[in-house]
């Protein structure tokens, strides 16, 4: 009985180790900054965009659960990204488009971009004569890290940036 348990554990550890070593994830947001530390306000070491495929590196002991240490060789970037910006699925973009495209080949799930996308929005706007002026303006309200850090600091708030 105990030998079986031991064998099971060893098998699962081995399988997990192999899976971890090969783990890749894709960026699932328009743009995300890669940080030197697992903090949304940590020093920026690079920028990833929608569809970028990254390798998940070993997580140092005690790393926050909601952050992953990644590398992207093509861009020469290594650092930390919040899990909320990543997906396990591969995202393939249409050439010259911000919209993702399905590649229905072996092993790819990439459904992003096939559903409600830019084309659907265009049609929806035209159908209902919906005005997106303020929505587009809202998208430009993007405070910088420096602004946010200065704001937190001056207000005596937490400047760690969310690495709970």
């Amino acid at each position: 009985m105990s030998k079986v348990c031991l064998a099971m554990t060893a098998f699962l550890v081995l399988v997990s180790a192999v899976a971890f070593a090969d783990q890749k994830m894709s960026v699932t947001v328009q743009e995300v900054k890669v940080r030197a530390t697992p903090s949304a306000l940590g020093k920026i070491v690079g920028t990833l965009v929608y569809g970028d495929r990254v390798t998940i590196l070993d997580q140092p002991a005690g790393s926050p659960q909601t952050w992953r240490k990644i590398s992207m060789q093509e861009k020469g970037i290594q650092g930390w990204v919040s899990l909320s910006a990543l997906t396990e699925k591969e995202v393939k973009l249409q050439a010259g488009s911000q919209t993702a495209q399905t590649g229905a080949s072996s092993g790819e799930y990439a459904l992003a971009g096939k559903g409600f996308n830019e084309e659907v929005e265009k049609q929806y706007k035209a159908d209902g004569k919906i005005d997106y002026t303020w929505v587009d303006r809202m998208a430009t309200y993007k405070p910088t890290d420096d602004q946010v850090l200065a704001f937190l600091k001056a207000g005596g708030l937490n400047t760690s940036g969310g690495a709970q």
Partner: protein
Amino acid sequence: MKSILRFLPLAFLVMVLSACTSIGGGGIGFGDVMQLGEAGSKVVQAEQTEFTPEQEYYIGRAVAANILSTRKAYDNRSATDYLNVLERALAVYSDRPDTFGGYHVLIMDSDEINAFSAPGGLILVTRGLLRCATNEDGVAAILAHETSHVVLKHGLNAIKQARKTAAFQNLAVTAANTAGGSNVRELTDIFKDSIADITNTLVNNGYSRDLEFQADQMALVIMRRAGYDPRAFEAMLKVMETKLKPGGLDFAKTHPDPKDRIAQVDKTLAGQMSVAASPDALAARQARYQAALGGI
């Protein structure tokens, strides 16, 4: 012994499945299926069970545009900038600091006590609601609550199941069709109905009491992480209680009675240490709050 071995593959499968679902926001869940393609090559067809962050983004933009088609924006740049810095300062302490297009706040020029969180992070808040806060911590309470609706994807959950099923069936067919083919017309019709579901919930019916309480509870966590005093949430609700008019078409209609929300918040905060701040820090917060929202 044999019975244990029989369950080994099952145990392994459960482990793998739970590991898969704990990571990432890719939006494809348990319904993923593999099928063999016609030519015998392995083609993966995904049966999508939730919207991807990209789809959520387009849904949120349409919901916000819809709401703003009948409500006027309050064009005050310094107040808007202040709220957007504060929103980012809170979002980094949420469990979802990154959405597809990010979090953005707009003030609506209205005396009613109202706010709408469109999926993906477009937050619309009225001047009337902002007046329920008497300091920055109170404004943080308002925004943390709205942010929590986004983190918890309450807006997306307001889309009727039939609509989701239609959208995902459409996607599955499209995914298998490598030659493409336009189904924009059909998708736009489903999209339109989905936007109507969410807008109707936000404007008319409101979320369930449970979802509102969930958002309140998560807001308290975000505030505490950021360093704001969660008790300001209760203070803000007390002001709201005095201002809400029975029969109003705003939070009076779509949210639980502030009394009930206060009771829930009280329960959570009882026994918790309060978050202290130095007099200088509080003075700095009050000064910038006054400068940005004093005349709201």
